[in-house]
């Protein structure tokens, strides 16, 4: 059943542009994939290791800014900036991970918010990166390597490829000793330590792996849109969206971020369509409402809800999806 569901999901994602044709649906598909990539990247440290970063926009922003900076400064194809952005993100992750992983629970979350906000304010006043206005990529593609396509379709398949890599990595992590250690740390740090788990080093590795993919998500975003400013790169909503999507679907599960994105992105698109520009604040209300509902009724997200409700609704016995053993 699990294998069948997986194949079904893969086929649906592969043929989605042919089932739902037209730029509107393709745009929703691309937005969904980007959200799923970002939330899956966050899920490695926030979901599996239980270190709830609310400052992941710092890695997304770096990933988004560096490619366009490569174009602005040296007229290089933005895609060449993506590996450089990854390096910067990894260095930042190491620099902030070492002191902040001394903190636990809410203190860690608050520290990540503070650092991300400081970076956003700094970037918003730094002329080299366009200060509050931001940066632009090539308006018209000079060659294919600028990755400026008229259609959403090529972006859809590039993003789908990246999502496949993120999910494959997540599965490999979850099945490895590293993945077991992450889940042990999330459950009980003291007990994990007593079994010889190198807690801080493991958390740091998780943050760096998460930063790696979040940075790539940022690069994909800016290369596709050809524009980035402090709010859309480093804004707190970018971080909050990753957290909410993963938590909605089920943090610490492989498909949780996908399910979360599958619910939230169409919902967001619908509210944007209904309320237009006048309802821009509605996103905050939507996020706030989801946080309230999850915290009060189902902290485990849709994943937990499904495993509790499905046996009663469908009169079937579901096997627990084991991550590894």
């Amino acid at each position, binding site marked *: 059943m699990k294998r069948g569901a997986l194949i079904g999901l893969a086929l649906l994602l592969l043929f989605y542009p042919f089932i739902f044709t037209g730029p509107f649906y393709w745009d929703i598909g691309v937005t969904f994939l980007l959200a799923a990539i970002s939330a899956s990247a966050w899920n490695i440290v926030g979901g599996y290791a239980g270190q709830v970063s609310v400052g992941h926009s710092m890695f997304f922003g770096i990933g988004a800014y560096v490619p366009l900076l490569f174009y602005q400064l040296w007229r290089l194809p933005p895609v060449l900036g993506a590996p450089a952005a990854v390096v910067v993100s990894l260095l930042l992750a190491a620099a902030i991970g070492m002191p902040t992983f001394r903190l636990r629970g809410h203190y860690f979350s608050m520290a990540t918010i503070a650092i991300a906000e400081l970076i956003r304010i700094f970037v918003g006043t730094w002329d080299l990166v366009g200060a509050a206005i931001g940066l632009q990529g090539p308006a018209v593609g000079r060659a294919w390597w600028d990755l400026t396509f008229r259609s959403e379709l090529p972006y859809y398949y590039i993003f789908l490829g990246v999502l496949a890599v993120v999910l494959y990595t997540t599965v490999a992590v979850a*099945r*490895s*000793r590293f993945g*077991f*250690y992450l*889940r*042990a740390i999330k*459950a*009980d740090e*003291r*007990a*994990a*330590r*007593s*079994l*010889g*788990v*190198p*807690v801080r080093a493991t958390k740091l590795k998780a943050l760096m792996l998460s930063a790696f993919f979040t940075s790539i998500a940022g690069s994909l975003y800016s290369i596709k849109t050809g524009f980035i400013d402090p709010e859309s790169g480093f804004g707190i909503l970018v971080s909050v969206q990753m957290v909410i999507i993963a938590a909605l679907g089920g943090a*610490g599960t492989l498909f949780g971020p996908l399910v979360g994105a599958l619910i939230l992105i169409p919902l967001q698109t619908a509210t944007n369509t209904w309320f237009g520009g006048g309802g821009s604040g509605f996103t905050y209300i939507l996020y706030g409402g989801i946080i309230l509902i999850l915290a009060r009724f189902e902290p485990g997200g849709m994943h937990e809800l499904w495993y509790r409700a499905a046996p009663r609704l469908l009169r079937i016995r579901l096997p*627990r999806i*084991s*991550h*590894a*053993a």
Partner: protein
Amino acid sequence: MLLKAEKIVKSFDGFTAVRGADLEVAQGEIIGLIGPNGAGKSTFFNCVAGDMVPSAGRILFDGIDLTRASAEAHARAGIGRTFQVPATFEDMSVLENVMVGAFLRRPHRHEARDHALRIIEMTGLAAQASQRARSLGTPGRKRLEIARVLASEPRLMLLDEALAGLTPAELQDAIGLVRRIHGIGVTLVIVEHIMEVIMTLAERVLVFNQGAVIAHGKPDEIVRNEAVIEAYLGRGHRRRRASS
């Protein structure tokens, strides 16, 4: 000596929980630690396990100084521990819990899994292997903690009230399990309030009171010790002993 804890002192903001306690454990021994609540047993235990750094004193394990080493380093050196309140990884299955311990010496998943399955069989948890830890009752969780530590292949196991709260039948099972663990060459230090466990298993007993070791010796010597009766066992014990 496998473990040598010398003149351990642990203070918290002016309050001294352990005052110069000594403990020597030879390879293959079973040592019991007893004493009233608040006597400093758990604090001493935490220092030996690397969960707390002693304010003074020295901890040597197999000749290596672990006084200021982390709990991770203690585990790597071969000291495993259980917790007074079972600290199982609730959302992981029994097998996955035990695999976390097994990974310490067996980094490859298949090796860790095979080893964990052997330990699960030995500790009588095979029927619950795929269940989440949170679904187990207290006896099951305590057993799971023991299995998890055992999977990390310790040379010294510190059991912190691992047998408390069990029914008489479960207690006999658990005593059998501790004997099997001892039988495979693991040295044990047991903190326990149940005198039956101490009298049955321990070869030597240390008695803590008000942060210090007030007596040590063989179990039958300890139960006759006047200071121990006064501080811990109580006058009822003296009367029972006299009538028997």
